[in-house]
């Protein structure tokens, strides 16, 4: 994991000092609301329904145990004993006091963390595959490039006041777990015909009000050109992206309105003027790769029989292994998910007590590292199989071992009307109700791979348009209604969900989801996943059931 140099530390410390001054000036009335808004957003501070919200950057989802303990401390001292993991691998606090934020940022800086550019119309936290470096289908570890991009984007003087927010995701595996086709720029490490690894560059994807699948602008870009190519795209976007209408200001609209060919020509022209003077040296890449060298795995970690024995004698443990662990490239190791989707708790929330234990477990079992995932869970990425039983027991004691990763109750959910000033409808309460209706764990496991994403408004923070089942809260004359979509996906087979029909009332949404799952169980072919069934039969059978006049 990347460790700050003296310069990195200085930069975040100076940023804290700057924001402290800005906050003081605002509290004294020397900055207007509008002026301070732009500054606080660039330091992760939103003003929400009840209180400010502070979004802390989780650089491509990576955290160490010391940082996790600091998050626990902040949750305890400055918030209501919990925080929230977001779909972009960040961490949110829902109840900080605005005058305390500089102090919180100073606490974060003491463990090499910050909240720089986690909101506002600027380049945001670079996200990546939560299984980077350990998964079995990796072409190359994307994290060194994520860190190079993180540094390049941080306090970029030219591109901090863009037409709209700008998100970059990097994936290094065959299976796209970073939703790269739904980012402003998606980067995919790929091998060309001569076996050389470079980037496939995707541009103009995005969710929100107008979900659009990104298009390939460059099928193969040599690694040494990555920053100059990003700079070319950003300059074209900064100069030509629409600023007249914030709903048309994302790069996806510029790409769509210009057409990919014209947009690409503009980028190529700009890039030709930059490329040669801005190459990333092989030394720089190698030095960054060294920062992400694999930990010292035990070659003797192969199971001594104990793991297999627990699997065969303890059904609950075996179920947890099946759903909440992923294969690891090193024999004898697995990546273990920490489910933040226990039935009664809001999706993605974690308490200070749980955070402290997670930090201890990371130290004990996973080289002191923890990762945040897009689906609002955590992962210990490097756990020996022989340690999994003990890990599971300790997670289970804290309600962090619900065996539901990738299933119906592993829902992505935004804070909704309960916290967010943008929301039109509640989402946490609905998630809870759906969870209660899907109470039978065997049923959930029988349903299998299913991604339900629910957002409380059109902004789509919970990526509802790419959920296998998407739920979107809408406001109709002050009443909460829910729009359902089916068939979305953010993975390799990227697709935007199709609208099932008219929005359903709040007291009907849970039944609608149950109906959809019932139809699936009836019509699926053997071992056919939900998404495959929807793609095979279309929405009609589901629609007939949900809108049947009873």
């Amino acid at each position, binding site marked *: 994991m990347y460790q700050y140099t003296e*310069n990195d530390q*200085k*930069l975040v410390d*100076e*940023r804290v000092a*700057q924001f402290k001054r*800005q906050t003081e000036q605002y509290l004294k009335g020397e900055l207007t609301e509008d*002026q301070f808004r*732009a*500054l606080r957003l660039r330091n992760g501070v939103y003003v929400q329904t009840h209180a400010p919200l502070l979004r802390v950057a989780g650089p491509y989802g990576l955290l160490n145990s010391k940082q996790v303990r600091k998050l626990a401390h902040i949750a305890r001292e400055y918030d209501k004993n919990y925080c929230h993991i977001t779909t972009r691998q960040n961490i949110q606090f829902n109840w900080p006091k605005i005058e305390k934020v500089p102090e919180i940022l100073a606490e974060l800086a003491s463990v090499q963390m910050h909240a720089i550019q986690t909101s506002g*119309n600027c380049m945001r936290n670079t996200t990546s595959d939560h299984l980077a470096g350990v998964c079995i289908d990796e072409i190359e570890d994307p994290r060194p490039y994520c860190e190079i991009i993180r*540094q*390049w984007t*941080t*306090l*970029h*003087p*030219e*591109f*901090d*006041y*863009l*037409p709209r927010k700008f998100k970059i995701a990097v994936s290094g595996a065959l299976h796209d777990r970073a939703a790269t086709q739904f980012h402003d720029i998606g980067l995919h490490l790929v091998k060309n015909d001569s076996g050389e690894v470079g980037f496939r560059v995707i541009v103009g994807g995005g969710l929100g009000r107008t979900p659009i699948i990104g298009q390939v602008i460059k099928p193969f870009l040599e690694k040494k050109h990555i*920053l100059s190519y990003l700079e070319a795209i950003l*300059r074209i976007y*900064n*100069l030509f992206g629409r*600023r007249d209408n914030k709903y048309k200001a994302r790069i996806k609209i510029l790409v769509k309105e210009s057409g990919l060919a014209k947009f690409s020509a503009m980028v190529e022209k700009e890039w030709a*003027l930059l490329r040669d003077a*801005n190459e990333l040296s092989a030394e720089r890449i190698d030095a960054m790769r060294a920062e992400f060298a694999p930990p010292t795995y035990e070659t003797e970690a192969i199971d001594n029989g104990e793991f297999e024995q627990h699997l065969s004698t303890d059904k609950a443990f075996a179920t947890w292994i099946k759903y909440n662990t992923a294969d690891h490239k090193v024999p004898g190791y697995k990546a273990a998910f920490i489910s933040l989707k226990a039935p009664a708790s809001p999706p993605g929330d974690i308490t200070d007590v749980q955070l402290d234990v997670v930090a201890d477990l990371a130290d004990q079992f996973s080289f002191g590292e923890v990762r945040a995932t897009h689906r609002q869970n955590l992962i210990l990425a490097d756990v020996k199989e022989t340690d999994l039983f003990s890990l599971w027991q300790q997670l289970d004691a804290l309600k962090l071992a619900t065996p539901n990763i990738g299933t119906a109750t592993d829902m992505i959910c935004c804070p909704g009307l309960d916290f967010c000033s943008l929301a039109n409808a509640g989402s946490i309460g609905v998630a809870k109700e759906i969870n209660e209706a899907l109470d039978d764990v065997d049923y959930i496991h029988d349903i299998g791979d299913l991604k339900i994403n629910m957002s409380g408004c059109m902004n789509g923070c919970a990526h509802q348009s790419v959920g296998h089942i998407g739920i979107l809260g809408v406001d109709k004359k002050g009443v909460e209604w829910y729009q359902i979509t089916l068939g979305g996906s953010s993975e390799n087979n990227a697709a935007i969900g199709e609208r099932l029909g008219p929005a359903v009332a709040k007291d009907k949404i849970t039944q609608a989801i149950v109906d959809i799952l019932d139809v699936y169980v009836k019509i699926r072919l053997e071992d056919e996943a939900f998404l495959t069934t929807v793609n095979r039969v279309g929405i009609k059978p589901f629609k007939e059931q949900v809108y049947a006049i009873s």
Partner: protein
Amino acid sequence: MQLVKDKEIINNTWRFVSDEETLGAGDITVTLQRWKNDQHNLLAHQGKVGLRLSAADVVDDIAGDLKNIHLVELDFADFADGRLFSHAWLLRSRFDYLEEIRAIGHYLLDQVFYLSRVGVNAFSTEKATDLTQVLTNLNDFTVQYQRSVN
């Protein structure tokens, strides 16, 4: 009126002439529109001529004229319009413009560090008391991650 130039507070010697006004004497700045329409008179002007650019202006349009332009004012109608940051970068890095680039209008005092990095070397403020704040804010950061003009 005073302003900050090259990290010092100095007196302003330039005057903006709107499209309707006569040019008058001394060092003047005009809009890009006027520069295009009235270049003959401007080149004969006794005194230096500068340009006031807005975010919507295209810097490439004046690339060939820069030798005759002795000041570029970047006029912020809205601090959130980041195009002017690219304009400054283009002037310095692409067109090797070496004379004064001045930020004017509604930029934020908290943007001066970024502005200086993309090549702005002078700052005009609404209130004279803000000039010292500009000098402070120019030193907000001593480290940086990426190349720019400065």
